[in-house]
């Protein structure tokens, strides 16, 4: 089912905080023919893909990372229309994929990107997400882990003006011994809203699961809001599952301390908000990729801090 045929409603749990009006507007745009791609990555390969439609564009991708292969995919999602992205990722046994997703669509645009990933035994999937564009920028990840597989998601959600940026994740620990860590940092200015709906599901028998979620949101303006739903559904007893979530504003004491050392308020806010994203950005192992994602995030952050 594609979204072009039936739009979700407020009663759909995964869309409860979404900007359905922006979605309706996008729905009225003239639609291009759907694009369908299939890509198999080779060992050591770094592939870059970019999409930036100004109309309504459905674009699907089937991505294969064969057993034992280690590869990188950098995806840039943008444009000024509606990009409806659907990606199916298959990781073979022991495969490794580093996946950078940079969503930087225009202020009026809508991006709805849905990723469905299946990890075979001992596969490792690392996602570094910068979700900062669009009137509605939405990324959904549905990841299923086999024995010993590992999934890491680091997400930065930045919103300004009337933006809604959201991340909806569902991580299924289908078999024993898999691990997952999700770290999400949101910074909101203007009238922006960030939503993080993250679910960890531990199937019966998936013993020795180790799953963690950490979600923190920073509100820079009185009119910004953050919604968080870190959810656990656990059907096995020998597991380690934890989540933590906080929402708040910049630490007034830290701001004052910085001012007494001569740092002006805008600079102090910028430093503190950058530090706030550190948990996500510093975790990107590849230096070039870390620079790329950081540059995007920090550049956008400057706009938010200035505008707050």
């Amino acid at each position: 089912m594609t979204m072009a045929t039936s739009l979700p409603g407020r009663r759909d749990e995964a869309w409860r905080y979404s900007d359905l009006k922006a979605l309706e507007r996008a729905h009225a745009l003239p639609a291009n023919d759907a694009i369908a791609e299939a890509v198999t990555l080779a060992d050591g390969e770094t592939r870059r893909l970019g999409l930036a439609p100004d109309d309504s564009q459905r674009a699907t991708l089937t991505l294969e990372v064969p057993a034992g292969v280690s590869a990188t995919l950098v995806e840039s999602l943008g444009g000024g229309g509606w990009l409806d992205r659907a990606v199916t990722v298959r990781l073979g046994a022991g495969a490794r994929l580093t996946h950078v997703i940079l969503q930087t669509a225009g202020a009026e645009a809508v991006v709805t990107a849905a990723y469905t990933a299946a990890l075979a035994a001992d596969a490792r999937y690392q996602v570094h997400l910068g979700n900062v564009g669009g009137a509605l920028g939405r990324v959904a990840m549905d990841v299923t882990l086999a024995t010993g597989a590992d999934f890491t998601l680091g997400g930065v959600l930045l919103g300004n003006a009337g933006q809604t940026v959201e991340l909806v994740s569902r991580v299924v620990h289908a078999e024993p011994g898999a691990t997952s860590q999700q770290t999400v940092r949101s910074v909101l200015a203007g009238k922006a809203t960030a939503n993080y709906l993250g679910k960890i599901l531990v199937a019966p028998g998936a013993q020795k699961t180790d799953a963690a979620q950490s979600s923190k949101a920073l509100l820079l303006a009185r009119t910004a809001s953050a919604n968080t739903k870190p959810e656990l559904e656990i059907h096995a007893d020998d597991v380690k599952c934890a989540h933590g979530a906080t929402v708040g504003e910049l630490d007034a004491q830290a701001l004052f301390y910085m001012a007494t050392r001569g740092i002006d308020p805008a600079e102090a806010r910028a430093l503190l908000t950058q530090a706030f994203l550190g948990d996500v950005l510093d975790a990107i192992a590849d230096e070039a990729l870390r620079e790329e994602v950081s540059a995007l995030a920090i550049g956008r952050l400057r706009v938010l801090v200035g505008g707050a």
Partner: protein
Amino acid sequence: MMLKIDNLHVAVDGKEILKGLTLALAPGTVHAIMGPNGAGKSTLGYTLAGRDGYDVTAGTATLGGQDLLALAPHERAAAGLFLGLQYPVEIPGVSNLAFLRTALNAQRKLRGEAEVSAGDFLKLVRAKAKELGLDPEMLKRPVNVGFSGGEKKRNEMVQMAVLDPKMMVLDETDSGLDIDALRVVSQGINAMRAPDKTILLITHYQRLLDYVEPDFIHVMVDGRIVKTGDKSLALELEREGYGAIAA
């Protein structure tokens, strides 16, 4: 005068804490303000540095003739004021080096001076850290995060040395220090003594004054300076308590 405070009244949450405080500090002098708990000593430090919530209801404070109260906190720092905090704040995710370099260059920029290069800055910080016995590795760590009480105070002294202010207000810098740390911190303060600089120590105890000899001691009770004298006043206070002096 370096710092001139005249008839300063300050309220916090609507409650008056400083009730007409007057004080004039000349360049090249070291002063200590002593007083019992609740006298308003820390309030004075926060007010001079411009913390939110410390409302000046009357009076003036000037630094080198410039109206201090009209400036934003970071502008006061650039004008040469340094407040050493009793409880230095932890800032996760921001390294000491980045913090201090940003601060130094922000001050210099505001004063119309050129930025310090990364190399010169590193050399300067390392030298100061070494003098003050702070492990250089700690400079890479987030500001004050996971530092012991003594390390935090040493870190304050490193910041002070690097930023090179002309008016230093040090709020209970001696609290929570063991004797070795106290010696190092005192060295740090003494190293800043200069004909064009003024130091104001806010302290509860005589202990620090054994290491940093003040030229003047001011006794503060209930939001006012009630007595000023030389360093022998500290011993008198130690002997007779604040009650007798205030009476």
